[in-house]
């Protein structure tokens, strides 16, 4: 029974992880930029949800679209103002640029929010339900539902909408898309905005489940990276598989080795995977 409980915990965690990583994967896949800001954008979304709950008493789950919209605007602006200027540069340049922006954002968050850990504590608490011996907290269950729904929404957006098709076209072949009349730099900005919006939405959900602090951002960034590599870069379903896999692995490794080794274990796994199957579980070749 313990193993089933751990599996369920892993799946619930994994749902949120997919949502955390999907924006990161989108930006990486389309812009070919590692967005070091991603972890901080998630935390920014968490803080927005936290303050909305504390001062305006808006439920964090209902705040998800607002956080997504706010972060979309921020991401769109960041891409237009900074990152568009170095598109196509070597990795070192784009990575260092987002790193610098992240340092700035981190410092601003420390100044504005302090480094103390905070958490949204819903009142009244939602409690938990017992599914045949497996106990699931309801707030986590709703978070997972929201997270997976958001990932599905992004998938539908990329598959079905005009702008989504343009994003996919730019990912496949930038020049050809440009010749077909796609405004590439605008698509880059929209893509980065969408990535940030997913981060903001994930952050709102995160604030219900975990304590937040600007210091958490790096750990989230690391997880997003591991998930992308696990699932394989370049597809939304891949991220979902990667997220759920990481959630399950972390739950079981916490059971067997203790939670203090979670980074070590996921990183060791990452190196092994990169050595033997660099395209990930669901990935295709050609995205290195």
């Amino acid at each position, binding site marked *: 029974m313990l193993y089933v409980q751990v599996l369920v915990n892993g799946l619930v965690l994994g749902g949120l992880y997919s949502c955390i990583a999907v924006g990161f994967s989108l930006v990486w896949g389309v812009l070919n930029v590692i967005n070091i800001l991603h972890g901080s954008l998630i935390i920014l979304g968490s803080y927005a949800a936290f303050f909305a709950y504390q001062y305006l008493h808006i439920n964090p789950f209902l705040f998800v679209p607002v956080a997504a919209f706010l972060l979309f605007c921020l991401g769109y602006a960041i891409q237009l103002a900074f990152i568009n200027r*170095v598109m196509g540069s070597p990795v070192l340049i784009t990575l260092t640029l987002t790193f610098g922006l992240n340092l700035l954002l981190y410092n601003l968050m420390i100044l504005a929010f302090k480094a103390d850990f905070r958490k949204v504590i819903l009142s009244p608490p939602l409690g938990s339900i017992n599914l045949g011996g497996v106990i699931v907290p309801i707030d986590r269950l709703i978070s997972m539902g929201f997270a997976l729904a958001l990932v599905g929404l992004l998938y539908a957006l990329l598959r079905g909408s005009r702008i989504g098709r343009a994003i996919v076209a730019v990912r496949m072949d930038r020049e050809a898309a440009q010749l077909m009349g796609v405004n590439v730099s605008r698509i880059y900005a929209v893509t980065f905005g969408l990535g940030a919006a997913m981060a903001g939405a994930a952050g709102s959900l995160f604030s219900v489940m975990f304590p937040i602090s600007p210091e958490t951002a790096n750990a989230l960034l690391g997880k997003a990276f591991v998930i992308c590599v696990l699932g394989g870069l370049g597809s939304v379903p891949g991220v979902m598989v990667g997220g759920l896999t990481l959630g399950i692995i972390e739950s079981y490794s916490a059971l067997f080795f203790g939670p203090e080794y979670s*980074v070590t274990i996921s990183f060791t796994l990452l190196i092994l995977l990169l050595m033997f199957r660099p395209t990930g579980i669901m990935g295709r070749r050609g995205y290195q």
Partner: protein
Amino acid sequence: MMRLIALAAAVLLVILPAVADNYVLRVATTMMMYSALALGWNFIGGFAGYPSFATAAFFGLGAYASGVLQTKGVPMPAAWALGGAIVALFAAALGRAILHLRGHYFAIASLVVAEVLREITNSATDLTGGGMGLNLPVLSLDVTAQARLFYYAMFAAAAAALGTTALVAGNRLGFGLRCIQQNEDAAIMLGINTLRYKVIAFILSAVFPGVCGGIYASWVNYIDPTDVYDVLLSVKPIVMVLLGGVGTVMGGVYGAVLFLLMEELVWRNLLQFHAGLLGIIVVALVLFLPHGLRGAGWAKLRWRQRTGEAAP
């Protein structure tokens, strides 16, 4: 003329402890340390073009290896050397695992190494003291003598790094690494054993931070995981090399000196916004001076071209 200036600078640096006060000596020691870190990064990041963010991992591992050895009774200089050797072995093993990754994958894989080592150091409480940190044996020397000792130690590390850089830049290894940087597939076609070259460059980029970590641990007498695995230890050397010129021999030294002068003069007045200002400088550097100060003249031209391309 250049030789004369270089000779004068070297003489000045050797006699510096005799003429300067402890404050200047401390700043100079920091400059030496960061020069060694920047020169170390330049082997893998500059010559080979692999964006490594592992400097903090090597520095921290060196600091802890040498610190733990000293608490077990190994004499200080031997502990520094052994620490460097341990870091070199670690880099050799790690390099074999992650150097076949390219671009983003390599960058992030190297970035996570420091996190992992920090976690392990935190958990191995009986050996490292965990989050409590590690106290090193106190030297029975007076303050001035200690300041001089650590200045010369860091000076030696930086000089060794510079000498190795000059050596590598002029020989087969440096040529091979530049080939890898320009076009790795073509380098393989030409018969360069790229993995071997990259691993050697990675080891060189690890040894100097490793030894510096050991010296630093003895210098400050107390280390803790958040201090010696600080991600800024990975980023600052990169910024310095970017500032001084990527892939050049002296770039790391110029960058380190300039950067730390800036830090001393400007940032100590802005303690609350230290990281933020560093971020602004990094962003400005990448956007306006992607080729460092030496490329300042024609960087503007490229800047215009690039913006023209990005907004059609």
